[in-house]
């Protein structure tokens, strides 16, 4: 397929996934901000949202003070913030429009409809009146867009590049969500030992905190089912990093990245496949004790760099037009 077409499909999927994960994060933070806590701690929670998405400088340049309202505005509906849900869904739709002929009619119409509806919901003031309903809607629409892709598209290159985009972005996003604690405490606290107590007893706070992380990736019930035990940070990390059967875990995402890479393999993608495969092997045979011993933040930072490297290499191998050899 055309390199340009593959590029649009890849980014269409990435933007959709990014919109979804931003909605998931904000949704969970809204819920936890309702817990009894000090104003500073609530503010730290919102600041962490910006930190995860590397948006702190852009936000601070625009707003002198931090308020929940402004963070939501900036991350959801600000068209000038390229990471906002609004901008991501617009970018997804524009990428889809550029290659609408390579999509099934249903996939294209889903993206177009999502975009038209989002504008309507924003104009109707849903973010102000009921932000969590808006986040639910974003999740729902991204479920629909993935579902219609799987349900209607031929399993050919177009499909594989879409899937590559989805899982590469999800790997990145899940890693960032896991690292939220680091951003929340401004780097002062690592996973072990647990953070300071503040108002609510710190063990109890920790429970809510890790439960929130689980909920943000739809893993709360999965956790209960897999471990049948109380929530501990080690197991949350294990579930979201190493469990290949947990659909939003790093291991699951990298498995999909490898599988889809293999299907689009070309004469220059060998090194990219090797690097992705190495990462997959480390996730498959890795132990959570070792990761935590190394330090979760350090591990996740390294992981993000490697995902970024694989993304860049995919661009070079497939998406930047291949000149005549």
């Amino acid at each position: 397929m055309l390199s340009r077409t593959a590029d649009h499909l890849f980014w269409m999927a990435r933007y959709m996934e990014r919109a979804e994960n931003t909605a998931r994060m904000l949704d969970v933070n809204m819920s936890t901000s309702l817990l009894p806590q000090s104003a500073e701690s609530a503010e730290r929670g919102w600041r962490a949202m910006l930190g995860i998405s590397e948006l702190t400088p852009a936000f601070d340049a625009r707003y002198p003070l931090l308020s929940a309202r402004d963070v939501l505005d900036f991350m959801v509906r600000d068209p000038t913030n390229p990471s906002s849900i609004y901008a991501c869904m617009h970018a997804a739709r524009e990428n889809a429009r550029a290659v609408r002929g390579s999509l099934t009619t249903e996939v294209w119409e889903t993206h177009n409809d999502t975009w038209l509806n989002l504008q309507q919901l924003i104009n109707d003031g849903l973010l102000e009146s009921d932000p969590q309903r808006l986040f639910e809607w974003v999740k729902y629409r991204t479920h629909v867009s993935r579902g219609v892709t799987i349900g209607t598209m031929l399993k050919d290159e177009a499909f594989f590049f879409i899937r590559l985009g989805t899982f590469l972005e999800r790997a990145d996003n899940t890693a960032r969500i896991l690292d939220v604690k680091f951003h929340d405490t401004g780097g002062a606290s690592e996973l072990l030992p647990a953070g300071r107590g503040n108002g609510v007893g710190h063990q109890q706070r920790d429970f809510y905190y890790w439960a929130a992380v689980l909920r943000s990736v739809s893993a709360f019930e999965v956790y209960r089912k897999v471990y049948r035990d109380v929530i501990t940070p080690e197991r949350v990390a294990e579930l979201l990093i190493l469990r290949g059967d947990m659909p939003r875990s790093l291991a699951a995402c990298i498995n999909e990245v490898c599988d889809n890479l293999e299907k689009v393999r070309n004469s220059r993608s060998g090194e990219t496949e090797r690097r992705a495969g190495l990462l997959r092997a480390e996730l498959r045979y890795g132990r959570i004790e070792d990761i935590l011993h190394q330090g979760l933040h350090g591990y996740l930072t390294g992981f993000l760099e490697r995902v970024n490297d694989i993304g860049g290499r995919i661009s070079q191998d497939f998406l930047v037009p291949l000149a005549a050899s």
Partner: protein
Amino acid sequence: MTAAFDEMRASDGAVRPHYRDYDAWLSAQSPKAMGDKRAEADLVFRRVGITFAVYGEAAGTERLIPFDVIPRIIPADEWRQLEAGLRQRVRALNMFLNDVYHGQEILRAGKVPAELIFRNSQYRPEMQGIDVAGGIYAHIAGIDIVRAGAGEYFVLEDNLRVPSGVSYMLENRKMMMRLFPDLFARNRVAPVAHYPDVLLENLRSVAPQGVTDPVVVVLTPGMYNSAYFEHAFLAQQMGVELVEGQDLFVQDNAVFMRTTRGPQRVDVIYRRVDDDFLDPLVFRADSTLGVPGLLAAYRAGRVTLANAIGTGIADDKSVYPYVPDMIRFYLAENPLLANVPTYKCRNRDELEATLARLPELVVKEVHNAGGYGMLVGPASTTAQIEGYRARILKDPANFVAQPTLALSTCPTYVDAGIAPRHVDLRPYVLSGAEISIVPGGLTRVALREGSLVVNSSQGGGTKDTWVLER
């Protein structure tokens, strides 16, 4: 002007036979039900993204072309005459193009003035002597037909460069079948949905010699072009790649596209990019829409361009008046479809006749299209007419004039209910190994009361066009 031919009703108000079934059905529908259907059509067009970009507005502005749910119906016998006339005309136009770029017999015979060709910016000297596959230049032609007076059909203009609108013919039908399935059960409407297959077959039939399994692509200027939806639609319906200039490159006079698995050879390019932008090495050097070296590959016969370069010389408004002569010259037949009588302002006496009757005429610039830059005398103020007169006098050869035709009308939904509005018709003629015409076309309708300008860029809408099978 008041006595325009109405497609549905005779002058005594009686419904014409081919509309009787539809009229009976329509009068049984409640205004509310029809209103709902119209709203549904709007919603679906927007969701499907059947939009066009408007030049002069912010990039990315997308608009819907208004769609009217009352079909324009053509009886079977009228269509047969139209079809024969279209075949004849397009055959002659292709022969003319082949002649102009080879032996120029028609010029030597004095049937078409030589300076009209050679001093015309639409004439492409680069094409002189090049043999194109099958001798076909205008593979896809959109011929604009109007009906005037007592109901005769006239050709208003030929579109032989990159005629657009066929996607609306297809989407309008799809919409009508979705909104009113019962109508299609009771009327025998000739189907049009096979157009993309016929188009693909046609394009494959004009591949360069020796290519047995040609790779066809559609070349678009990109997603901000006004007709982008159509480019994407046709590529998808034909199952071929939609490419932009940057996706193609030329090496050793062969054209390749850049794919995720390396270069892939391209044999036939259905290009929706104007001549001027096709190859920056030959035409506009600042074009980023084209492919450097494309013309060299084309001249070497290694790739087919549809339509060919230089077809504008046959659809130029200054050449239009000579098409009936072309038919007589090349085919030794009488034209089956009439031209609209046209004053060529390049001729002194015709210029004078034009200037004397400006308030009643339609005057057009010979190279312009899309309804831009024209004067509709009866709809213009004295100041506008005088301003236009000055423009004509400055460069008479740049203008032609025609009587203001009372274009036929068709009942159309407007704010106040159903009222007659002027329509035209653009059928699409495909030329390759043979000539094919899908029974139908794009009916455009001028939505403003009294307006004769049907172009979508000027506030026109569209209708589904039904050709009855009997």
